[in-house]
């Protein structure tokens, strides 16, 4: 097996997304907590590499986007819990989770732009929110 370095890398916004999901699991799921902690450590290592390589500076808008992404993932988590607990609401919750996923992908694209990454191949295309109602995001 070749030990040549990998050429395909997870994008900065994808790492931030994965960090926010692993953070939910580290708090909510006790059985595999060590595994999530280790994943968080590895993700943070790679985020540090990207920040240093690209000299990314923090802005208030960048922090706001991180906050929105972290919270959307937790909203989706709760919606999926409701979906599994209350089968009569399965379809309604499934649609809402899908719609929020569109906003989540929009936020990930905004995070790439805010951090100075303009490579279109890294952008998410599934950004439709299918006319979501009652969820306000002034981004």
């Amino acid at each position, binding site marked *: 097996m070749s030990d040549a370095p990998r050429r395909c890398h997870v994008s900065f916004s994808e790492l931030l997304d994965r960090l926010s999901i692993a*953070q939910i699991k580290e708090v909510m799921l006790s059985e595999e907590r060590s595994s999530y902690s280790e994943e968080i450590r590895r993700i*943070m290592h790679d985020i540090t590499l990207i920040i240093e390589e690209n000299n990314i500076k923090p802005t208030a808008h960048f922090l706001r986007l991180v906050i929105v992404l972290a919270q959307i993932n937790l909203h989706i988590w*709760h919606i999926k819990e409701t979906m599994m607990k209350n089968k009569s609401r399965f379809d309604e919750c499934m649609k809402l989770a899908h719609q929020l996923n569109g906003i989540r992908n929009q936020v990930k694209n905004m995070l790439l732009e805010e951090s100075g990454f303009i490579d279109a191949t890294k952008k998410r295309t599934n950004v439709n929110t299918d006319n979501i109602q009652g969820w306000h995001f002034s981004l």
Partner: protein
Amino acid sequence: MTDMRQFQFSFADLIDQLTIDQIKEVLLSEEQAKKIISEIEQLEHDIGTLLHNKNIGLKAEFIRMVILLSQINLHVWYNKDEMMSEPDNYIELLRFSQDLNSMRNHIKNLIMAAIDEATPANKRSTFFSDNSSWYVQILANLRNGK
């Protein structure tokens, strides 16, 4: 205009308030959200000013603390809803909220320490419920910068 105030929000307070306003913007009515959006703009302004004036760099540890703070405040929000809908589990859920709030204060203290903003006077108190719960490993990881 010179700012004459001597008692100001800390950077950690501003980030914390931004995470709470972000919850409100999403979950409250459209009419209420308009006022929240205005406050969010003011918070972003002051956060941007402090980032610049204190020359704060971006670190993975800081991003993680912002994520954790954002989600802890949302956990508290959902937990309060559950406390109302599940009165039989009220105390257990209240204990979870107490621990979440302690974790929130702990993270704000870490943010203040990271940017040289911490003083004995502005340090937030933490009152965790016991030493065998969900937060123990997270606290240890944060302490070790993991």
